[in-house]
């Protein structure tokens, strides 16, 4: 099966299509048949422009019909769409442009499709990446009717970026076969029985695996309607998501942890008037660590409007596996268990303890998937031992496009090293952190280097001695970003004094992220490998185990809490704060 077959077959059902909800909650609906017609026109345009089979076509659109015209048009032309994110609102554009240029280069895109407004902005990024067919709008494409180009299940279908960073964006190459396998897995969770016709509502960006593969493809494959809101609408007014679910009788909707948190804090009673959430069967939560406190707060807050506690379904997946790897049981309240903190941090052992750290189960492998938990020497660990999570299944990526070295590191003899740390307990997966060095905040990935490089030039920072890590602390509603910096030996007292503030500002300027903690350490405190490379995972482990102490009395440990003024206004942090 290939995606193009779904498109050819869709449009039979009068209710299948795409519904776009705008900021005033007006909706536009387009049947899949109409989507196909428009995509065919784009396909013709692409082919007469010279796009050939296997060429990458980058797409930079906000959520809207043009994205789909470009996306399916490229697929019908045998090309490989590369969805990229549109410009941010407000703030500085240069960082965005640099990042986009890098992703265009890494994907080897021959053509960029964008709407006319985005196209004007993109000039610089496109000039840098030089795609040989340039940057065009859908309207710019030459019009001509051409037959679609046949593709095989083994052909590449989509390039998704696993990490939206300038330093190291990784283009995940997924075949039609992998996507079809993933969509079959997902569809299996919601059989069409007992007269309930499932429909999905999503505000997730279309360049995101959970939005594209989790929402768009299953709706297309089943010829049902998918209701879409732009991510910027959701963030501006989270109630629009819940109202759309109620109005369009959405039975399924996924979102990262932060979205549930945002609803708790930013949705008002008035906005919920007349809203009925009882139709919502499955509220998937994935793409970032799941905080039990957030799930409970959401469940309790929205019970009044019919939200079913058993709807909340923690899941786990990653773009390298197309999407889902594990699912917790549907129609069962989410399960959190408590494990001894010290045993977890020090011995990497999961021992249930009544007052321990609560971790939410992300469930069992989805059909066709298997898991291994392995140690550093790649030996299998028994249940209850924390190790790297490896996954095998029918929807794994072909590899990282144009990056054989990274591919070899990720795909080990048919198994995907997810880079996440976790353990099995009664057959269910519990995640404890990450072995791979990536910062995940609000569903987006950042390379730690981006953050670390930002503080390099600050007076008083020891060159090359900064470590950025993020993790989900107990009782916190979302991941927390901490930056550890060593002060230089020559640093003056006033420089050291000013370091947390200066670091925070520099990181914000470079990445739009605000560290929740900046921890200044004496020179030589951060753990390193024998070859002198900083060990981020070990830094975090030492920090959480309370073992990362500076060799007093040279420089006092300075810990800047910063909660109140940090960008994570939603965060409630009562955990592990060590202050002077």
């Amino acid at each position: 099966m290939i995606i193009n077959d779904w498109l050819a077959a869709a449009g039979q059902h009068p209710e299948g299509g795409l519904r776009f909800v705008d900021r005033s909650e007006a909706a536009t609906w387009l049947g899949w048949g109409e989507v196909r017609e428009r995509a065919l026109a784009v396909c013709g345009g692409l082919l007469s422009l010279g796009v050939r089979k296997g060429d990458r076509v980058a797409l930079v659109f906000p959520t809207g019909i043009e994205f789909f015209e470009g996306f399916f048009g490229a697929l019908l032309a045998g090309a490989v769409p590369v969805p990229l994110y549109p410009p941010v609102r407000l703030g500085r554009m240069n960082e965005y442009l640099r990042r986009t240029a890098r992703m265009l280069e890494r994907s080897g895109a021959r053509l960029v499709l964008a709407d006319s407004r985005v196209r004007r902005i993109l000039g610089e990024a496109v000039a840098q990446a030089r795609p040989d067919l340039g940057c065009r709008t859908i309207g710019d494409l030459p019009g001509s009717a051409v037959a679609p180009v046949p593709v095989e299940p083994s052909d590449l279908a989509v390039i998704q970026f696993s990490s939206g960073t300038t330093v190291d964006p990784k283009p995940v190459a997924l075949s039609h076969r992998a996507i079809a396998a993933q969509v079959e897995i997902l569809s299996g969770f919601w059989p069409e029985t007992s007269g309930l016709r499932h429909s999905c509502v999503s505000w997730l960006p279309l360049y995101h695996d959970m939005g594209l593969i989790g929402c768009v493809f299953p709706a297309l494959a089943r010829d049902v309607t998918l209701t879409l809101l732009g991510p910027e609408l959701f963030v501006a007014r989270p109630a629009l998501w819940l109202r759309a679910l109620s109005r369009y009788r959405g039975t399924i909707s996924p979102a990262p942890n932060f979205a549930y948190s945002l609803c708790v804090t930013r949705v008002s009673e008035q906005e919920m008037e007349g809203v009925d959430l009882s139709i919502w069967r499955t509220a998937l939560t994935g793409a970032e660590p799941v905080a039990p406190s957030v799930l409970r707060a959401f469940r309790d807050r929205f019970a009044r409007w019919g939200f079913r506690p058993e709807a909340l379904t923690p899941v786990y997946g990653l773009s390298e596996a197309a999407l889902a790897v594990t699912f917790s049981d549907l129609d069962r309240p989410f399960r959190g268990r408590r494990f001894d903190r010290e045993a977890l941090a020090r011995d990497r052992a999961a021992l249930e303890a009544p007052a321990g750290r609560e971790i939410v189960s992300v469930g069992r492998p989805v059909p066709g998937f298997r898991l291994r938990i392995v140690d550093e020497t790649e030996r299998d660990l028994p249940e209850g031992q924390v190790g790297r999570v490896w996954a095998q299944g029918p929807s794994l990526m072909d590899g990282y496009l144009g990056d054989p070295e990274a591919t070899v590191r990720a795909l080990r003899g048919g198994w995907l090293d997810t880079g996440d740390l976790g353990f099995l307990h009664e057959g269910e997966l519990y995640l404890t952190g990450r072995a791979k060095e990536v910062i995940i905040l609000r569903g987006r990935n950042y390379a730690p280097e981006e953050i670390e490089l930002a503080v390099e030039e600050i007076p008083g920072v020891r060159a090359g001695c900064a470590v950025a890590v993020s993790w989900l602390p107990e009782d916190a509603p979302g991941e927390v970003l901490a930056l550890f910096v060593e002060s230089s030996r020559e640093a003056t007292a006033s420089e050291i004094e000013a370091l947390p503030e200066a670091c925070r500002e520099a990181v914000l300027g470079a990445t739009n992220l605000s560290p929740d903690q900046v921890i200044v350490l004496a020179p030589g405190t951060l753990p390193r490998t024998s070859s002198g490379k900083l060990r981020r995972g070990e830094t975090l482990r030492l920090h959480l185990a309370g073992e990362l102490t500076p060799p007093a009395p040279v420089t006092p440990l300075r810990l800047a809490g910063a909660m109140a003024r940090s960008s994570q206004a939603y965060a409630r942090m009562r955990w592990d704060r060590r202050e002077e």
Partner: protein
Amino acid sequence: MSDEAILDGVAEVARAHLGWEDELTPEMRLVEDLRLDSIRLLTLAAEVENRFRVRLDELDEGSIETVGDLVAVVRRKLGGTE
């Protein structure tokens, strides 16, 4: 509407939706000084639009980096001049 009135309105939005208690001046940079991350930038944009009943076309306006940039764009959208 005068720039001062617009600035006051932006300050109100920042207080209500971003918890910004201090004074707001035109030179302040949204990211570095107000410490707005991408989600809060989106929030600010949306709430400024609600407050002034305008649609910010920042892609057409170029980069909006400071409070003053934002005020100027709102003024243009409201049809005012310098």
